[in-house]
């Protein structure tokens, strides 16, 4: 057992990334994730064989990540909603070039400049591609600071394993919150060799080149098929979720991240009133845990999706249940966090 440390979410990501071997961070200040950028500056600027750059823009930051990732090192950038929008072109290039990296989005209320309070309205952008072209990120959704730490470490392994960018999709609440965390010893896993593609200078080998384009449409189509194959593999092997109280539940709530945390309290409060609520909490938003949702919908016919958006993940839940049961939705947006009592009231509506 390691030591427990009280840490703010944003700083915990930084520490987890460094412990996972990330030595190259490129970022731009934006609320509510700036503590992460500051943490990386404080640590990496004092380390050997490491670099921190405060980039001139979000666009430059993601392109620095593209360059560093191309040399085979573990690298990361982070931002919050409007900043992540700016990075989308670069993320599309990285996905097409099949390079590993980690991108953190501590979501805030949108659209536009929005607010600086927590939000979950970047779900579509994170899970459906975000930039141009057919690609996906691996999207991880932590709901506690400890999970933020664990998933950040996992993220680098997943990125290397699938040579695909991974997004940590948190929100301002998780980023700003302080909790006790433990940095657990990680078991070594074997990951694919990067030498075959990394740009390290062509000494003793043919040159390597990374070009995210092909003017021959049939060749470009092949690139697309190759990338899609990885997504199918992800759907087979990497789906993660948490379930609570699925047996005998009167109603199933599907929620992720901060909202799922609130639902856990709602479940306890509802129990006192004799109401049985179950929870499915997707941990991977892509690949999405559709099988467990489909299976559960064969047993329980009341579903409620709660998000800090006006209805984004609910579309994936509907696809998963495929019309078998009614899927209801409750959401607050713009930086507003739904309260336990308003969610419980909403649940009661469907149990009448």
């Amino acid at each position, binding site marked *: 057992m390691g030591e427990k440390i009280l840490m703010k979410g944003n700083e915990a990501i930084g520490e987890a990334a460094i412990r996972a071997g990330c030595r190259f961070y490129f970022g731009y200040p934006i609320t509510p994730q700036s503590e992460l950028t500051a943490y990386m500056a404080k640590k990496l600027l004092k380390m050997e064989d490491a*670099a921190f750059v405060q980039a001139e823009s979000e666009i430059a930051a993601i392109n620095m990540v*593209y*360059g560093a990732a191309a040399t085979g090192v573990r690298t990361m950038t982070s931002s919050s909603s409007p900043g992540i929008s700016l990075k989308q072109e670069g993320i599309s290039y990285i996905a097409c070039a099949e390079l590993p990296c980690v991108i953190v989005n501590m979501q805030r209320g949108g659209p536009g400049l929005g607010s600086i309070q927590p939000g979950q309205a970047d779900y579509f952008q994170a899970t459906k591609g975000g930039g141009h072209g057919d690609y996906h990120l691996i999207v991880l959704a932590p709901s506690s600071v400890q999970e933020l730490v664990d998933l950040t470490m996992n993220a680098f392994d997943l990125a290397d394993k699938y040579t695909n960018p991974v997004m940590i999709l948190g929100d301002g609440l998780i980023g700003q919150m302080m909790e006790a965390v433990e940095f657990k010893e990680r078991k070594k896993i074997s990951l694919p060799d990067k030498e075959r593609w990394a*740009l390290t200078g062509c000494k003793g080998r043919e*040159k390597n080149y*990374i070009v995210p384009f092909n003017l021959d449409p049939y060749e470009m189509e092949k690139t697309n098929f190759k990338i899609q194959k990885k997504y199918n593999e992800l759907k087979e092997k990497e789906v993660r979720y948490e379930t609570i109280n699925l047996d005998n539940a009167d109603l199933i709530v599907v929620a992720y991240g901060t909202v799922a945390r609130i639902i856990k309290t709602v479940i306890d409060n509802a129990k006192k009133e004799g109401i049985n609520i179950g929870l499915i909490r997707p941990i991977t938003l892509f690949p999405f845990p559709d099988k467990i949702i489909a299976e559960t919908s064969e047993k329980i016919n009341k579903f409620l999706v709660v998000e800090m958006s006006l209805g984004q993940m609910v579309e994936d839940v509907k696809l998963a249940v495929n019309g078998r049961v009614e899927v209801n939705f409750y959401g607050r947006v713009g930086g507003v966090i739904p309260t336990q009592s308003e969610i419980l009231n909403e649940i009661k509506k469907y149990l009448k």
Partner: protein
Amino acid sequence: MKKVFERPKSLTKDPFTYCPGCHHGIAHRLVAEALDDFGVREKTIGVCPVGCSVFAYVFFDCDMICAAHGRAPAVATGIKKSKPDSIVFTYQGDGDLASIGTAEIVHAANRGENITVIFINNAIYGMTGGQMAPTTLVGQVTQTSPYGRDPKTMGYPIKVAEMLSTLKGVAYISRVALSKPAYILKAKKAIKKAFQTQVEGKGFSLVEVLSTCPTNWGLSPIEANKWLEENMIPYFPLGEFKTPEEVS
């Protein structure tokens, strides 16, 4: 028999696909010769842009990556930070470097990134078929300045070498041309100095290369060389704008 001329090792055997009379081929060769001269081919990583020279990755026989439009200096920054012992160069056109990528070039220069930038200024967008570039001359007709570039609404051509040489982080900047052998010899020297600056760890270096685009200028290769000398050089004067003492 003594061999007096051969293909630089840093170029592949693939024939250039550039238009007849275009200067990209000469510029590629000069970069390759410089890499050969310093013996750094095996530790070089080149960054190609979006534009005609997006295909530079085919022609340079060293590790290469293609950046998004304008982002080559940021990509090069990421590479150099993670592989500080490598030699990193970007090869960018005027639309790429002086329009969509203005922020990236200014800040890479200002940070004094120890990279070399080869900036091809041919006063026009080549790949997309001849639109106005930030370096298009006043009065010059292009697809998007069909009545000539009017500075009242379109501004004046940007002098990249002069602008960047005001930045303290910059070590070496020069402007060269490739329209005649005497200029090519000077260009070779400048490109070599730029790479020497990097090899010696002295900081950011850039060579602005005035080049022709006969296809989009609507001129023959010979006429294009003449047009460059009569129109571009008077506005974009050749010479060194900044040198670290030791490489001057």
